[in-house]
């Protein structure tokens, strides 16, 4: 189904929060999914799969144990949202070292928007590579080389970020996204957890009406 990017972002933020992520990480998940959707990638489906996999589990289990050496998580399946956010926070470190590597990351495509964020901060293209995939971005455009199946891998053994990166072709974002109804509904189930059940009291008190509008 055809959606505005704003709708995709709003739904993903609520769904990520509903799956137990902090508000700050939910914002990252939403912005990232919006970014992927604008390049025609199935961001909403991938996010739904990741959120269901780690539903309400402790984030520390899927976070990098340390921001040095090769990043890995104690669970052996690092969250691309937590690792990606940390990568974006470490943009300067990436610039200094030229390369940051990670092990066993789930849904690696969800890392790419964070590389875009780092590229914007560094004003230099950043590349993300895993088996069969080379993606490079300056934050605004994308160079994508890989097999369709490899983009949507559920787990990557090794992921490498590097900068400066080469962009041999440049894909422009579009201003419309799409998400299959099935993925949208799955996100909706998670998002629904963030809505307070309707009660008569909240209907009257919570929004403060109660005066007649027939005047």
């Amino acid at each position, binding site marked *: 189904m055809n959606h505005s990017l704003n709708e995709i972002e709003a739904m993903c933020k609520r769904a990520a929060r509903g799956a137990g992520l902090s508000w700050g990480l939910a914002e990252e998940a939403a912005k990232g999914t919006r970014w992927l959707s604008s390049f025609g990638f199935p961001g909403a489906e991938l996010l739904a799969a990741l959120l269901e996999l780690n539903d309400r589990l402790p984030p520390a289990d899927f976070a990098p144990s340390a921001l040095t050496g090769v990043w890995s998580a104690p669970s052996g399946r690092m969250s691309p949202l937590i690792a990606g956010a940390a990568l974006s*926070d470490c943009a300067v470190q990436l610039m200094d070292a030229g390369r940051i590597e990670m092990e066993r990351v789930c849904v690696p495509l969800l890392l790419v928007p964070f590389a875009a964020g780092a590229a914007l901060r560094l004003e230099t293209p950043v590349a993300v590579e895993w088996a069969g995939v080379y993606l490079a971005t300056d934050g605004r455009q994308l160079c994508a080389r890989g097999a369709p199946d490899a983009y949507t891998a559920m787990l990557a053994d090794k992921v490498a970020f590097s900068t400066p990166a080469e962009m041999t072709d440049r894909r422009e974002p579009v201003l*419309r996204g799409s998400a299959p109804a099935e993925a949208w509904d799955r996100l909706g189930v998670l998002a*629904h957890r963030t809505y307070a059940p*309707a009660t008569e009291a909240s209907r009257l008190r919570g929004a403060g009406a109660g005066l007649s509008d027939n005047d």
Partner: protein
Amino acid sequence: METTAQTSISLRDPAQVMRLSRLGSLHQCRLSFMRILTRRMARENWSFSRPKFDIDENGVGVAVFSATGPARTYSLIAFAHDLPPEMRSDRVIATAWDATFALFDGVPTDEDIERLSKNVPYQEAGRVSEREISVSRANRSVRLWEHVVSALSEGRQPDATQLDAVGYLMRTTAVYGSGKLGAADREMIAERPEFQVPFQAEMLSVFLTRWFVRDLVQHMADLRAKAAGRAAAQLDPELARSLGIGNSTGLGMAPFLLNHPVLFNNWISAREDAIRIVRSLDSASEDEIALFLRLLQRSKRNVALWQSEHEIQVRKLAGLRNDLEQIDAYLSTPQVLAGPQPWDQMHRWAEEALSLEGQEWLASMMLEPYGSLIDDLSDGMAADNTPTFRIAGAMTIEELRGLLTRIYEWAIGTDWQKRENRARAWYVSEEKLEPRLGERFEEPVEEYEQPLAPGRDAAALFNALAHWQGEIRVAEFLLRHPEYRHTVRRAQIAGRAPYAEIRDNTISHDVLPIDMLRCKLAFFGATQFDPRSDRWVRICMYGNAPYPQELSQENAEFWVYPRLEEGALA
């Protein structure tokens, strides 16, 4: 001899400006979005047409109103409905309205209208496409509507006093843009010069809605008169101009200012910069002083017409009316504006002598003669959030502490253990996703709380940092504490954008959400703020404005100030 060296005037301190009580006392000014729009349309000589008006004797049908600028045409598609009174509600949870609208990018074909007729009347339950820029709805003011239709149909004009008492024939209850319900994203139109400034599409939609409402009320009067074998009177153009479009706004608008800190900063920053520029002027010319004094008199008529039954606004209005007397006394001092830095002198006097309503009213008025100096500030009112979204992880804990101490001093000094300081919680109801404000200690809403208490959260972050070594980077802290990611981001944004953050408690037992609504609506250009409760406000938009066909360079600027009666100073 006195020194003539110019003292430089600084921007007002965010700690002074960003208090809810002051934000809740803001008034429209030259930089309000409605005025920016009418100024542009007049300058660019936009043309307007009504390609379709097909509405039956029950008031049901469709009409199209088009506005054409230098490069593009936009059309308001209006669906008129016959709404049973018991369904008339201004709340988000309403499911039917007197009229529903879409702003279309171009001129719609019959197929477009057919497609939209199956969606727009249902609002949130329908879907629109990227060809639509906004979706909105409006309800009649039942009493005034019937008064005007019956008067005109009986061949006479409606009573001006009754028109003034309400101010509008219909009030909008939501105007959705920015990709809501499937419409075009803001990014799709933000590059167009006419929509570069925020909310221009929504303001255009309302401007055209006002035209639709005038035509509809006349049409209904004509049909009623015809049925009785009479001819209806034509609504007097002066009376028609006195009518704006109402708006009824609830809590949905309050989180907007908190959720768009960079955008909010840019609005406040533009107005504050304008105030600084005018205060910095060495002197005022006779023409500038004359224009200021003339508009001041006209603006007082708006204050005189302003009615509210809400005790808070009643009190504020009494204060404002008292302020007006003091302003008159101040300005009657001979040569008071003839000295050096007259506007700064007046501003400083106002800060001592007037209520917040009066101070901000006068600050907005002071900008009026200086369009050539300040109107271009509107170019900076939009926001691109991309550069500010990323967290600067290389910042040290010590630097973050410094930032928090500077921006959230009030919050760090607040006792958040006290129930009264966190009595409320913002949440979203599953009923049409209506935003609501609940009682944290009385209702089961805390687990659904939205991140709309930046002060409390910043104080918690400050405490969490207490035992961290100062030279450690924020990236390390956030790896262990993802729960503070949202708040670190806000603090870093507010560090770069001084007016991004409200410096007040948004969850205290006595918070007034109407202060946030008022602030945003003032930037739209609204007048006649009439709170219906602490979280609900009615306003008037485009009151006294020219209708589209009348719009010209002569009337595009100061329409917000009613013309005075014949013989009075005008």
